């Protein structure tokens, strides 16, 4: 009787091990919470050393950092737009102002890159707002989708 019980316990432990090992092997390569990163860095590639003023014909040199943690390859497009205090932009709606520059990157899951950005804002504006929007290329390679991530740098264009 006791011998049978011990046998059943040994069998149960082995079956549990089988289930554990197989589940580990079968778990697909993926991410639990997919997300993309976008960051704007100053001319020295540091966060926070952004220029505050720029002349109308001057060039603003910054860097855009992109990181892919979406669990799949993505074609990112960063639209740089020039707006002001009245410009509306949020996670669902991109700013309805002209694009002044566009930067692109193709990243596999886990990859990141830093892209140098040079912008000539033009036209004096005391409270200009440089808006960086993250867009992604659709899987058909034909259509851009707003990814809902955006950043801004306030500048005084003299």
């Amino acid at each position, binding site marked *: 009787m006791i011998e049978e019980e011990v046998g059943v316990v040994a069998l149960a432990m082995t079956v549990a091990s089988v289930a554990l090992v197989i589940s580990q092997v079968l778990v697909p390569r993926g991410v639990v919470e997919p997300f993309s990163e976008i960051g704007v860095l100053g001319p020295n590639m540091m966060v926070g050393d952004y220029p505050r003023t720029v002349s109308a014909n001057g060039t603003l040199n910054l860097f855009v950092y992109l990181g892919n943690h979406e669990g799949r390859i993505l074609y990112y497009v960063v639209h740089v737009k020039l707006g002001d205090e009245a410009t509306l932009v949020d996670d669902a709606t991109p700013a309805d102002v002209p694009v002044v520059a566009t930067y692109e990157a193709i990243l596999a899951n886990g990859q990141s890159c830093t892209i140098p950005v040079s912008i000539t804002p033009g036209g004096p504006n005391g409270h200009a707002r440089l808006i960086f929007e993250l867009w992604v290329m659709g899987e058909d390679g034909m259509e*851009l989708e707003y990814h809902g991530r955006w950043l801004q740098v306030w500048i005084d264009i003299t």
Partner: protein
Amino acid sequence: MLGVAIAPKYHSVMADGDEDVEARIRTIYVRLVDAEKNGARMEEAAAKLNTALQMVSEAHISVNQSARSALLLEAQRIAAEVEASVPELMREAENEAEARTVLIIAVSSALVAGAVLAYIYGPRIFWGLWLRARAGWWVERRD
């Protein structure tokens, strides 16, 4: 999410050479997306394609015509290299999937065999060890 067609916007700001290469890069990107869905690893191909894309961007702002042509040519070469690697990536993915199936079957079989052996010999081994652990004991009988 908001979607917009990409072609008209780029048409207005890019020269023909840039656009050709960029269109090709987008086509290759679509192929890479498909390959990844089939299990192909993307790190190297994506890095190369991104390099080609950055070269096109550089060419786009370059004022030196010869440097611009050289950049576009190199971008095209890299893009072609990535495109050529897609079938190999797919093959590797297929091989990896097959190897994983074989591994799962092998591990499952080994563990099932282990379970049967444990069921048959487990009690014998357990009690054998139990007896050995208590081999030196004296049992006193009290009436």
